């Protein structure tokens, strides 16, 4: 549903036809069930209550969390705090420059992100108020939403807002019948189906599930298992990054 711009990039977009070689290797050298190299770092911004920077392959996402604070939008009384998300793709994040202003897909991503996080945040701890999560995708290299969910959960933890568990997310693309874990943009372009799973790994609860394409029950189970494995891997990385950032903060305090 992308509105077409009047200008086009001067280099034609060449997307690879086949994304998996005969030997089962992907374009970037990964196996089918292998993750891209991930870098997660909490506390990337100083002015936000909590923040995180995440890189998964070429996808780069920055998240800032503000609050709990009074909602800028007039809302009705609520015993449960609100989680407001705003996902923004930078105008230079994609090949084709994006227009300014919120597009429909950004609005949708914001909604999906909010659902993924709401279940984890203990919202009764901040009644009548809200937390604002601003998420900026600096470079869109595929699976932006999963990276955004993982980074946002980390930023909320960094802000010291009570959560039942961290949330990690992972997606699988189906290309020509094969399931590819953590797809890049080129792989996602060739997909005929996709599954995105966000979960709280310790509590074993699913907080978001987004599926496209036609799936049989058996294949869906297989894809969910693959996603779960990915989420658990990311969970370990997330916890380690949070712990080491906390240790650094403590060490800095001791020096002072």
């Amino acid at each position: 549903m992308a509105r077409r711009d009047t200008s086009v990039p001067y280099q034609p977009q060449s997307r690879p036809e086949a994304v998996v070689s005969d030997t089962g290797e992907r374009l970037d050298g990964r196996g089918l069930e292998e993750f891209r190299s991930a870098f997660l770092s909490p506390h990337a911004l100083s002015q936000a209550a909590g923040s995180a920077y995440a890189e998964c392959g070429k996808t780069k996402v920055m998240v800032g969390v503000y609050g709990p604070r009074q909602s800028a939008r007039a809302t009705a009384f609520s015993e449960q705090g609100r989680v407001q998300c705003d996902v923004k793709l930078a105008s230079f994040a994609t090949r084709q420059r994006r227009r300014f202003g919120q597009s429909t897909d950004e609005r949708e991503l914001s909604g999906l992100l909010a659902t993924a996080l709401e279940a984890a945040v203990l919202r009764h701890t901040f009644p009548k108020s809200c937390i604002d999560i601003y998420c900026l995708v600096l470079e869109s290299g595929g699976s932006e939403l999963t990276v955004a969910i993982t980074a946002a959960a980390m930023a909320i933890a960094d802000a010291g807002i009570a959560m039942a568990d961290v949330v990690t997310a992972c997606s699988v693309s189906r290309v020509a019948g094969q399931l590819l874990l953590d797809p890049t943009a080129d792989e996602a372009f060739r997909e005929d189906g996709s599954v995105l799973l966000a979960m709280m790994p310790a509590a074993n609860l699913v907080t978001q599930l987004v599926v496209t394409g036609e799936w049989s029950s058996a294949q869906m189970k297989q894809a969910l298992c693959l996603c779960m494995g990915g989420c658990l891997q990311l969970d370990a990385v997330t916890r380690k990054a949070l712990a080491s950032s906390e240790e650094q903060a403590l060490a800095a305090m001791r020096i002072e």
Partner: protein
Amino acid sequence: MLSQHERHYIQQGMAQNVRNDGRTCEHYRPLKLEVGVLNMTSGSARVKLGGTEVVVGVKVDIATPSPDAPDAGLAYYDVEISPLAGPEYLGYAGSELGASLAQRLARSMQAGSDGRGGAVDLTALGIIKGKTCWAMYVDALVIRVDGNVLDAVSIAAKAALADTKLPSISVTEAEGEDDEPELEVDDDPSASVRLETPSVPCIVTVSQAGRSYVVDLCEEEEQCVDASLHIAVTAQGSLRGITKQGSSGIDLGSLQEMLGIAQRVGPKLIQVVDQHIASGAATAQEED
């Protein structure tokens, strides 16, 4: 807004598989479906699901295909919640809800980037490769809201698509090299081609309230559930497009069970919808 005790009452009912209107957890409300209700469209349908009422119109225009899928047409899905349904849908709130419903409907229909593998075969909408195609606009208008709007929208969309006829079009090859091929659209309605829609799914929203799983919630019941899954199911029972909603997590066992319920209820629902479509423009009323 419900009081805590009203909520508890409804949840207890769900736990015992009896709901306020006497339905069990896996029953839909009475469905009323009419097709071919709007003259200005290529296909249309009107659905009443309990107190929820939706009208869908499908219009086709001539457009240029996307460079990624030169031999396929384009499909756009939109949902508008009319302020007739209530003053709370006026302005921003209504358009935000409408946009998210539209995304979910589009997700259930989504095709690959080459235009293949969608619920509607988009290559059937191609006219001249790389030059001309049909752009199909599926617009839903929600007139009354009484719970389960998305399911009603998807039923109406399925019926409207099944009712859709594309004008037959003949292409005359260009004579000179620089000339464009000529298109001639037949304005005789009997010469039009019906759109093939066997794999268009219906969305079944399955909600979790404690240990019970419920379909087709009315407005009050929607306030009593923890989380919902919008699951699009085809007539064969395969899954096609899922989105989660609601502020609780779902454990994996429940998830599998909810998928199973959708796969059980969905094909039955589609059977009823297909019967309505087959009985034509005649108004039919039937209880699931």
